């Protein structure tokens, strides 16, 4: 195995996944500004909060003789995300990236190819979560004393944390592809990986349902928090988190060595799996299916207006491209799963009478409005329908410019397509909620207006950001979304705006006033963003490629 070659190939793969630099100095300036904003107002606060949480939990449990729990729990959660990320991304990297067809003819060993791709993904994953790891280590270290060596090694171990789960996912992926010979179509594999992610999330949700919030406090007090099913499962599935935590809490050299050994072993196993299975499984996959001559002829005589046909095209591309379907469309419908979980954890009575009675209190109602606003905004940012609206076009972007349809209409169509999915994932639930909780008509209407305005705000913001420097050079659809900093900027600015609005809403004791004020502010912001989109946004689009 040629390590130098792996290093070079990893660098090439990482470079090909990254975004192009903005063309003009002005745009570069904007992007630097957004980066600083996101770092200061989102990454930094989240990091600090994570550190504080770890610190508090560690301090509490250290008194009960379990200082390692806080770290172990946080690392367990990070590992869950690594698994989900691994299924979503490593599968894609190993099997669906179109550059595979260019790499396979090269005189590369399978293990060199796989390790390069794995390393590229691993580094990318770490770039996203390393700030959290630092926060966890800092939170722990400030609550429970560690010497300098342990501080440094704890950070190194945190960096290595995703390695084992991601390697295991990659190995399982190769085994799955090798031993399930019936899977020959990429689309089928993607569907399977999507179902697996849903199953993992479902299992996690089911386990969370078993948590009793009252008992958790007791568990923490008497140090038996590990008895919670969710925590037990995390311990079993991710034993390496216990090793890191053990080293951090007790300085166990054995745990340190075992963890490092496991990391090395996982990479060796990955290389072996690649050597024996990868080429066979990847060469069997075939995107091209034989065109069936017997298929029935469809009619070409259905006519639509230009706007409607663009809208239909947009919807078809979203639904038919698995990466967009899962990350942009399905993402809107995930959050409702967590509502009954939280209700269960909080031991809330979900009967209509009890819910309605609870929300007669102005503060409670305002809190509900804040949650509704937060869900709407975060969902709209998370689905990145706005912030990758132009990136999604990829190599086909030019059509926007040469078709005889005004830029304004095309912009509005993209907004509409994004809004449809965002509202479909939020508005029906909120409508049900305001009726179920027997909100007065005024508050209910203002709540729904606020939600719609918030969706529009995030969508327009995302499109405006994406118009500055869309990520158009990608080979596989998932790459349009990955490492696309427009989505990161959109999420960052959304979280900051949401925090400001929610903070403001909390000051009002009258819910209708809260919702009304938020709706008004958002509508004004929407109007400003829309005008910006119609002018600066369209100007940006015209300048793309120039």
């Amino acid at each position, binding site marked *: 195995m040629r390590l130098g070659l792996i290093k070079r190939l990893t660098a090439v793969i990482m470079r090909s996944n990254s975004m192009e630099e903005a063309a003009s100095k002005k745009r570069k300036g904007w992007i630097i500004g957004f980066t600083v904003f996101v770092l200061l107002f989102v990454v930094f606060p989240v990091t600090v909060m994570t550190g504080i949480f770890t610190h508090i939990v560690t301090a509490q449990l250290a008194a009960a003789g379990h200082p390692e729990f806080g770290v172990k729990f946080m690392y367990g959660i990070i590992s869950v995300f690594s698994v989900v990320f691994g299924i979503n991304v490593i599968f894609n990297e190993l099997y669906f990236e179109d550059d595979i067809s260019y790499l396979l003819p090269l005189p590369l060993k399978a293990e060199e190819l796989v390790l390069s791709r794995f390393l590229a993904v691993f580094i990318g994953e770490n770039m996203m979560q390393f700030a959290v790891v630092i926060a966890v280590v800092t939170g722990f270290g400030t609550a429970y004393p560690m010497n300098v060596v342990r501080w440094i090694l704890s950070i190194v171990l945190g960096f290595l944390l995703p390695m084992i789960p991601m390697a295991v996912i990659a190995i399982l992926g190769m085994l799955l592809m090798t031993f399930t010979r019936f899977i020959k179509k990429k689309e089928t594999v993607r569907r399977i990986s999507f179902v697996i992610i849903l199953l993992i999330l479902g299992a996690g949700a089911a386990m969370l349902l078993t948590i009793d919030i009252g008992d958790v406090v007791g568990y923490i007090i008497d140090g038996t928090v590990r008895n919670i099913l969710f925590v037990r499962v995390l311990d079993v599935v991710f034993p390496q988190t216990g090793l890191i935590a053990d080293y951090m809490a007790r300085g166990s050299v054995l745990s340190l060595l075992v963890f490092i050994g496991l990391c090395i072993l996982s990479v060796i196993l990955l290389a072996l799996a690649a050597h024996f299975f990868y080429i066979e499984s990847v060469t069997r996959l075939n995107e091209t299916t034989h065109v069936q001559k017997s298929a029935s002829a*469809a009619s*070409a005589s*259905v006519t639509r207006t230009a706007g409607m*046909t663009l809208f239909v095209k947009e919807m078809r591309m979203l639904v038919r491209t698995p990466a967009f379907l899962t990350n942009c469309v399905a993402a809107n419908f995930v959050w409702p799963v967590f509502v009954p979980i939280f209700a269960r954890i909080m031991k809330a009575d979900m009967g209509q009478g009890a819910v309605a009675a609870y929300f007669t209190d102005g503060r409670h109602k305002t809190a509900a409005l804040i949650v509704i606003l937060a869900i709407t905004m975060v969902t709209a940012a998370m689905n990145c329908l706005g912030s990758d609206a132009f990136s999604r076009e990829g190599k086909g972007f030019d059509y926007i*410019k040469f078709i005889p349809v005004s830029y304004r209409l095309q912009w509005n169509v993209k907004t509409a397509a994004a809004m449809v999915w965002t509202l479909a994932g939020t508005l029906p639930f909120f409508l049900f909620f305001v009726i179920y909780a027997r909100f007065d008509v005024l508050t209910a209407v203002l709540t729904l207006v606020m939600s719609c305005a918030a969706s529009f705000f995030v969508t327009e913001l995302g499109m405006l950001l994406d118009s500055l420097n869309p990520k158009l050079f990608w080979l596989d659809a998932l790459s349009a979304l990955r490492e696309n900093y427009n989505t990161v900027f959109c999420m960052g600015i959304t979280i900051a705006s949401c925090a400001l609005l929610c903070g403001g809403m909390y000051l009002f004791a009258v819910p209708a006033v809260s919702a009304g004020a938020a709706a008004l502010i958002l509508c004004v912001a929407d109007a400003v963003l829309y005008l910006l989109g119609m002018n600066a946004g369209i100007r940006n689009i015209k300048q793309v490629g120039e």
Partner: protein
Amino acid sequence: MIEAVNLSKSFNSGAAVAADNISFTCADGEIVGFIGPNGAGKTTTIKILTGIIRPDSGKVVINGFNMAEKPLEAKKIIGYIADSPDMFVKLTGYEYINFMADVYGVPGDVREERINYFAEQFGMEKTVFSQRMTGYSHGMRQKTMIIATLVHDPKVWILDEPMVGLDPQSAFNLKRMMREHADKGNTVLFSTHVLEIAEKVCDRIMIIDAGKLIYKGTMEALKTGEEGGDLEKIFLKMTAEEQA
């Protein structure tokens, strides 16, 4: 008619010049071939003509409509085939053709008739159009793109490497269609690397190198007095001189 007047375009703050004060006219009734080495500026020029890229200076006029002032009117007249047939491959052939027909406002019965005509010209069974283009070969995608481009019967055809991926019969038919289209008083401009195609099909050719138009005129005029009329040698000599 295509009129390009003093088109200039550079990238990287002027470091790379893709079009350097280019002017030409493609008259009604003629086929013009656009030839040049890789990176000469063919695709950039074509993108300027179709409104994809705006020139730093100069103007494009399509059948009297200035692209900068009346872009939608100008674009409605153009049928443009990009150099890569990989657009919207998740759609079926029919969905893509319908999409383009809707965008250009082609009535249902007219588009059906045109699809039938082009499908026959390219030897494609219409049932193929009911399937997603992900399953198409490169050539089938190219044919589908051509059909979608021509479904609104554009007066001006601007084709970037249209023959790539076509089988000999389809390439022959496309060349014939280009001739017929021009003979009806319309305009065809296409880029190609294949000098033989340009030689056989074009009324006039334009040679571009390093962003400069180094020749425009008829094939006969180009060959006159030049090394026995071998177009390949002439082309290589001209581009070498330009680079020197």
